[in-house]
């Protein structure tokens, strides 16, 4: 790959980058990692129970998840990068659940049960409670694909409005700002239906 290609990759959507990565373009793969690793790391930090995080290398898990997803993404044709990010989030969430299940099968000492029980929760559950988290997840799942991508991009992944706009095909950052705002109201309304 030449330098011109590298510069051009910055402007490509994630979906296009995935296609190139599947064709063997290493730089496209690197770009995907650079684009998603930080946000997914941050996201996973909130999701992994503290004790499981001790046993699982978060970065390894995320990288492995990304590679697997990129390889099998033919079956998924997202409308935009925001939907792709939501897809990645779901895959990673499944992976975390698997890791947690595996970790709980490992042997442990008797006297740790009390402390272990206390650390079963993720930071999110600790902060807002398991019930509230399930309510949120349920409502999020019932939102439209666009609204879900908006909420995830801004609230969970912490993207700036310009990035949200790019990820969700909004013309401007202000348009993305308004869209997120309305999506949040719809999310809160949906949470009330739980």
């Amino acid at each position, binding site marked *: 790959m030449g330098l011109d290609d590298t510069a051009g990759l910055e402007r490509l959507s994630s979906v296009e980058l995935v296609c190139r990565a599947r064709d063997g373009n290493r730089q496209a793969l690197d770009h995907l990692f650079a684009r998603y690793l930080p946000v997914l790391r941050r996201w996973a930090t909130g999701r992994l129970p503290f004790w499981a995080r001790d046993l699982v*290398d978060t970065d390894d898990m995320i990288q492995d998840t990304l590679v697997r997803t990129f390889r099998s993404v033919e079956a998924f044709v997202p409308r935009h990068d925001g939907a792709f990010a939501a897809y990645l989030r779901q895959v990673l969430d499944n992976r975390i659940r698997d890791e947690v299940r595996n970790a709980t099968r490992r042997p442990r000492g008797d006297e740790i049960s009390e402390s272990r029980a206390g650390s079963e929760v993720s930071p999110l559950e600790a902060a807002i409670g398991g019930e509230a988290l399930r309510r949120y997840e349920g409502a999020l799942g019932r939102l439209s694909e666009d609204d879900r991508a908006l909420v995830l991009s801004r609230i969970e992944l912490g993207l700036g409005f310009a990035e949200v706009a790019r990820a969700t095909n909004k013309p401007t950052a202000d348009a993305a700002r308004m869209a997120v705002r309305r999506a949040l109201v719809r999310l809160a309304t949906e949470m009330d239906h739980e």
Partner: protein
Amino acid sequence: MSDRREDPESLAGRVAEGLPVDWEEAIRSAPDERERRIVRHLRLVESLGRVYRGAESKSEAREDTLDATTTLNPVAGLSDPLPPIGTWAQLELREKLGEGGFGEVYRAWDRRLDREVALKLLKTEESKNHSVASQVVEEGRLLAKLHHPNVVAVFGAEVHDGRVGLWMEFIRGRSLEQVLSEHGPFGAREATLIGIDLCRALAAVHGGGVVHRDVKGQNVMREEGGRIVLMDFGAGLDVSGREHTAQMHISGTPLYMAQETIRGEPATRQSDIYSLGVLLYRLVTGSHPVEATSWSELRDKHSRGETRLLRDVRSDLPEAFVKVVERATAWNPSERFGTAGQMEQALTRALGVEASTPTIAKPARPRPVVVFGVAGLLAAAIVVGLFVVPALTRRTGSATGTYAVEAALYRNGADSGARERLEPGALLALQDHLTLEFKASVPLHVYVIDEDDNGHSYALFPLPGLEPRNPLAPGTTHVLPGSRDGAEQSWLVDSPGGREHLLVLASPTRLIEFEAEMNNLARAGQSAVPIPETTIARLRGIGGLADSPAASDGKPAERLFEMAKKIAARSEVVKGIWVRTIELENPRPKLRGRP
């Protein structure tokens, strides 16, 4: 906050922007129950986003912040008996603890995370000073990334209602200055131990890119249970920003300041080290190396190098301790310790314990079970299991939080490469090679000792000349006793001892006194017993140790076991020390003839 009612879309906009919301007011002013619920849902989403944003800044070093109190601290879930006297952001202010030129300090309750915190609120006028406000917030964020048991855990810093606030772990205990005024000067040993903890704290602070700027007795807490905690970074900022330019009466802090800082140069690691030296000086004397009652007098004395030498004030103190303090308080920054770690090493030496590779202090006599290394390989093993340990006090929250330990003892087939995990009570045999696999989620100081029914005892880890050394790096499975020149070593059972009692102890902090006791033990690899040629061939890696005589009367280990028990009993609540004993059968008749 404004009294103007905000509808859900407006609130959603603030959530989207990451702006603060007065949720109590928003809920109160909602026109009906349904909208109140919607507002609460938005609040929940805002909390969720905050956790993700918090994870961004804390993921590297402060992952225990939520865990320490919300999951391990039973007290945290209880409602505070005192009614709130006000609110700031998500904090209910319970009690004013102090007030100074910079603002106030409160004991507060974090409603979102259900934990007690200490909140430092800058005064409104200070908060309006954009430079100071942004500095405090920025430094608070840096500190929130720090993770060290001797540094107060900072949970966050932000501007709310026009005031800058920094909230942190609430420590129950007394400042060193209070202890000093109540009980008089400290002894050299106690001051040294405190100094070692503070050196570690400073090393962590400096490693995080922060200079404390205000190390002094009032800013170091001795928590109930004994933990030494460095506090009060915000005050340091305040002081460094103003006091050294003012002509004012000296209130205490300037007496800890290095001459270059007093002259207006920026605070540095070396100026922190100077302040720590002054603190140690003060702990053992009740005074400061440079005493003055005004800035001009202080500057003059510094410029003339008028320092009261510690040896002149306390001629009874150990020379090694005096030298450490004098070097730390040297006038020229370049003559001070280059790093806090170097100062810690010097203090440790002053205590009579070598830093990472304790020396063998006593000659040994023949021992029934000796363990030492074999090149090449194979793990053998026993095991101890998987443990997760609550690390620090329930009463105050934790700077260390939960950590996980996996430890397993193995028997390695010397020639076959076979590897067997040993359970407690397993039968040992002569020539068994043992290794301990140890993995933890945080850096830990690990100690392994062995005692048999004959009263003979041995230090099995750490061993001089072997890698790894303490503290063991987290996230890696270490095979102990370690390796030398790349060749893995193992402990060798070279004689029957009845029953072997292995003690494995791990601590987030170094156990200086325990190490000192360990120095009285014979060490694995030392033996006056002739070693079979075949074994020697496999032991080339630590052959030098085999020549050293070793002696043990059994008493040191008994002390160590007792000490470990006490530490363990205490640690469940205070120190987060992990202790396990493993008993293995090593009877005389059954050992013979085992391959």
